[in-house]
């Protein structure tokens, strides 16, 4: 694989999993799950 493709894959995964991880880490900070 070219260096560009590898770096590209790593950066995209950091963005996506970083975003997902941030959201999951915030879960439950302002909400409850019952009426």
């Amino acid at each position, binding site marked *: 694989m070219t260096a560009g493709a590898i770096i*590209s894959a790593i*950066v*995209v995964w950091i963005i996506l999993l970083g975003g997902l991880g941030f*959201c999951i880490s915030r*879960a439950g900070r302002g*909400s409850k799950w019952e009426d």
Partner: protein
Amino acid sequence: MAEVSRERWTGRAPFIFAAIGSAIGLGNVWRFPYLTYQYGGGAFIIPYIIGLFVLGIPWMMLEFGMGRYFQKGAPGVFEGIGKKWEWLGWWPVFVAFLIVTYYCVVIAWSLHYAINSLMVTWGVGQAGAKAASDYFFKYVLQLSDGPGTLGAPVWVITALLAVVWIILFFIMYRGARVIGKVSIWLVIAPWVLLAVLVIRGITLPGAIDGLNYYLAPSFAGLGKIEVWFGAFSQIAFSLSLGMAGMFAYGSFVARKSDITNNAAITSFSDTATAFFAGFAVFSIVGFIMQAMNIPIDKVAVKSLGLAFVTYPAAISMMPGGNAFVGVLFFLCLFFLGITSAYFLAYGGVIAPLMDKFGTSRTKTTLWVCIVCFVVGILYTTHGGLYWLDIVDRAVSFYGLLITGALACIIVGWVFGAKKLREHLNETSDIKVGAWWDWFIKIVVPAGLLFVVIYGGFMSDLRKPYEGYPLWAASMIWVILIVTLIISFILGGIKTKPGKGGGQS
């Protein structure tokens, strides 16, 4: 708002998985990877993420939030804003109804291929790879020469379509409680299958070449309008918004629970699944390029061609375990499809009908399944693929985008974006600022209308869509107008108070 008793998700995980299941679908496998390859490789993620933040996530927050606020599906939400707007809730119900009728036919094809992959019915080796296209179009679809020649239904596909609807009935007839629990398994299953397919794909000869095409970044295209159109359109289609169902899914959320964070988690999960699927797809594309000694522009890398021609051809050429890979790939498509199908049918159609007419869940589910199956037979005929394409253009492109834009405008300017934002912020993990109001009022509708005008009107008004005869291409506008008229009629009918809608 007075507290109302309504069916509920059994927890946060079932809701999130159901929402992710609705968002991830066949497009994650056959559209996102292609767009990424077409529009700059890894660099495509820049306009995509920007689009996700300015368009996708705010729009999803709106649909979840309005559903929870009014505790109703889409028509009930717009009736709550004002009786004169109820039609705007029914129009996306028709979008969902028509999409699910043909979407289930594609799931039936996937089921057919999952079964036939066991024997690699279309043949193995070079001969099988070359026969893959004929197998799909001439044997499975028995495709006619145009939309004017419908012919009889292909009975194998019709029977599989019936199986799909029976499965859907048993998932849906007990409502959100069962849908949520089932979704956890049906979302995890394709992730596991994709992981196996990625591992198998990247260990094939030539896979690296395919991945280079997929990922190599090119920033030169970021100034081009078509790249932004590609990103915005994929976000609009992929997140299952504008199809009524997310209003209903939001209405099943408990009133003290989060909306904004769940919308973000759903959106990121959808994008991550699509990006991951690209590794499975393009490793296979690279393999088939090398195995058949052909350039990438001779390989179908998107849509039906990718799933039902390129992938079967690759299965024919694989050195070992090809039947196993074939079964896994088409089962993966089946799972991806089925979670979106019950979202469309239950959230998009059944819940709004129960809200409106106070009918029981079991009866409504049964009748919706029967009607959708009967309408779906159209797409199993010899000319069915043409009609699938035409109806898809009408509802999944124009219908979805136009109703989405109008919904944002009415919620933003009539109901009040600020009022909804304050409702969201009361109970959500992530608080949204005043910027969100302007996104809902202006940016999201403008983005959706940009996609409609640039990708739709500018081409379809100049010449008939996809070169179909004018009478057939005109059916796009007929479908939109007829569904709009019926939406106005339904919006004028009095709603049965206090019944249905999953009120328990």
